[in-house]
């Protein structure tokens, strides 16, 4: 949304904004905690409030056409897009393209955690969606793997919903998340955080029953009974579409190979926000996405 608004302000008249969900705002909608907008709006907002400020701007601009429930299934290097929406399959050609596709969570499978595969193992972001959007409580005794921000925030969220968070297990020697989240989400609720520990095994036939925690320094182990395991072990930029268009992708990070912010190996395709690289703060996503909108406008001027 920030890129679309910025592009329009920079003089672009014909903008199509495709969103696969039924509403604008993306993952911000499920981030009902505060901490958004301190830099950009100089205000401490929740995720939905932050998104709403942009939705209002978008709605006020006639040059931006919004298409919801629109799912891009193909992209070519000539910037021809094919997308599906209920009842329609559209093919369009863009002069410039801004990719703001965000990121996805690394999964249990990608970290190769051994053990069984019962119900009760969820990416932290899915658990967040279940609680904050759907009103569903996924579990009552929770162990969180990884001290990423979503994991930390979910530790507090589960606690506030009356569940017991048994521990946060971090394989590294320090947290991956923001210090403010460690303090406000764990320490304030006396939730133990184990550094240099890993989950060696998950047990349970139908539902998670317990996990085996291993100290990676001395190999000592202990068990934690629980019914839920949340995975918060990092984010991956979502770039399968530009990969389809043969944009050069760094295999390790799944981000585009790039020399300058928002740029990739194809002229006229700009990649911004968490799909360019994983950011800590939404304010910085906005800052660089505004730049992406301006860069796209500049690029279009150059074409004429």
């Amino acid at each position: 949304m920030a890129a679309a608004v910025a592009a329009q302000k920079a003089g672009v008249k014909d903008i199509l904004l495709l969103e696969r969900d039924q509403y604008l705002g993306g993952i911000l909608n499920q981030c009902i905690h505060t901490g958004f907008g301190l830099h950009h709006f100089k205000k401490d907002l929740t995720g939905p409030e932050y998104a709403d400020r942009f939705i209002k701007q978008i709605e006020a601009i006639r040059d931006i056409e919004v298409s919801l429930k629109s799912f891009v299934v193909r992209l070519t290097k000539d910037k021809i897009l094919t997308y599906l929406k209920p009842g329609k399959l559209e093919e369009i050609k863009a002069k410039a393209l801004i990719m703001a596709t965000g990121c996805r969570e690394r999964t249990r499978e990608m970290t190769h955690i051994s053990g069984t595969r019962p119900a009760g193992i969820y990416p932290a972001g899915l658990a967040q969606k279940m609680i904050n959007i759907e009103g569903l409580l996924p579990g009552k005794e929770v162990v969180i793997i990884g001290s990423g921000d979503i994991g930390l925030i979910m530790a507090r969220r589960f606690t506030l919903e009356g569940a017991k968070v048994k521990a946060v297990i971090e394989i590294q020697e320090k947290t991956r998340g923001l210090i403010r989240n460690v303090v406000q989400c764990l320490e304030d609720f006396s939730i133990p955080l184990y550094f240099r520990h890993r989950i060696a095994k998950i047990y349970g036939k139908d539902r998670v029953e317990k996990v085996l925690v291993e100290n990676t320094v001395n190999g000592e182990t202990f068990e934690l009974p629980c019914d839920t395991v949340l995975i918060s072990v990092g984010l991956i930029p979502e770039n399968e579409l530009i990969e389809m268009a043969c944009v050069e992708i760094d295999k390790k990070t799944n981000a585009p190979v790039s020399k300058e912010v928002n740029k990739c190996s194809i002229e006229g395709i700009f990649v911004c926000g968490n799909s360019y690289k994983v950011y800590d703060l939404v304010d910085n996503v906005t800052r660089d996405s505004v730049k992406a909108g301006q860069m796209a406008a500049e690029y279009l001027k150059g074409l004429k």
Partner: protein
Amino acid sequence: MRAAYDIIIIGGGVTGAAIARELSRYKLKIALLEKEAELAFGVSKSNSGIIHPGTQNPPNSLKGRLCVQGNKLTKQIAKELGVDFKEVGELIVIFNQADLTRLLEIKKEAEELGVGGLRIVDRLWLRKHEPNLNPEVYAALYAPTAGIISPYRWVYDLAENAARNGVEIFLEHKVIDIRQSGSLRLNAAASRFEVLCSQGNREVNSQVSLGAKYIINAAGLYADEISGMVGINDFTIKPRKGEEFILDKKREYLSNHIIFPLPSPISKGILVIKTSDGNPMIGPTAQEIEDKEDLSTSDEGLKKVLEGAKRMIPSIDENDIISYFAGLRPTAGKDFIIRHEDKAPGFINVAGIQSPGLTSAPAIALMVTNLLKNNGLKPRKKWFFQKYRQRTIHLFDIPFNKTKELMKEDPSYGEIVCRCEMVSAKEVRDAIKRGARTLDGIKFRTRAQAGRCHGGFCTTRIMKIMAEELNIPLTEITKRGEGSEIVKENRDSRTA
């Protein structure tokens, strides 16, 4: 007794489903019993999906013969049922000249069994047809008739067709006892067996009893226990665990064939497998274990499989792995046990169906039909047997112009639920209409949740469709049956 059947088949895996479909050609009253929430949830769900050509089996074995026959039958039936079967061929590779003798032996043994088209291919051929293969591979045995199929969709479609032809399927029916009644005469009109089942909810069991003239025991890992219920205790099922690792669809063309090393006495080794969904798979391990429910994977398994697979295709990377699982092969000695039990007339054991069980299933079904005929059953063919089935639509394997047309009939083909595998709301609804009752059942049928994000995006979307279609609360939706509910509570007053 609730009802009496001519035949009760115990076990809704590929063996039971193939037998049910074959027998549904006849005027018989047939019941298929499965203890899990859905079919194929036992041994079959963790199958590699390879339709073996018939190599790597002892020449005088039952499995050797059934595998070769099954390969041909599978091809034919898959076509009738609209199941995707791809004849990709396989390569058994060797790394030095010394192993050539063994490779030629395998070729000779397979040819004796009737496997066609086998030939030894050299480095030059391999470089051209399998460019990612380790250049150190010396030669390979090429078997062009090897193929791939989705093991669970195969079971679902066989069973769906059987049901279409009159077979009654009972899920969550666990056989707890079999009683034999007085009459042992094979042509007796009355039921010889009373099959006692516990039904539904695992905690509050309600029991049901079904009568049968014939019982076919296709109970996989529990075939020994079922057989024991009629006093036949001369075999034991020992689980042999196999861990497998699935790679990202981006690596679909990692290999063009299924690639095997030289087989060991207990297993075919660590393979690089193509799957009909596109995602390559590596594995499986082979480890004798005691616990029939132990489906855990291990760090050692991962290490072993990666090592074995990378030896054949060095570019395989640990980061390509998007999923993994373990399955148990139900072994009972070296060969299959398929026989009528004269000590319990009317009882047929189909046990120890490990690899190549998936391939052999349709041939096993024919063999079982003959066993029934040889032991008193005189079935008459139905005047009409519906052998065809309409192919299930998957957006991921049809071209866009076809998708466009489909959307005119139903706009919800354009409503994408699973972003990684491109599965629409319509496909999920269809899967439920075809019998899916659990998230795993949806996954196996449609591939939704099976991609790289592992359900992070689509789980709640699918749950809502299920709640709507099945008219159940969200809290009752399970991963794979009772006890595996996804969420503990619903706090949303709008949908509670």
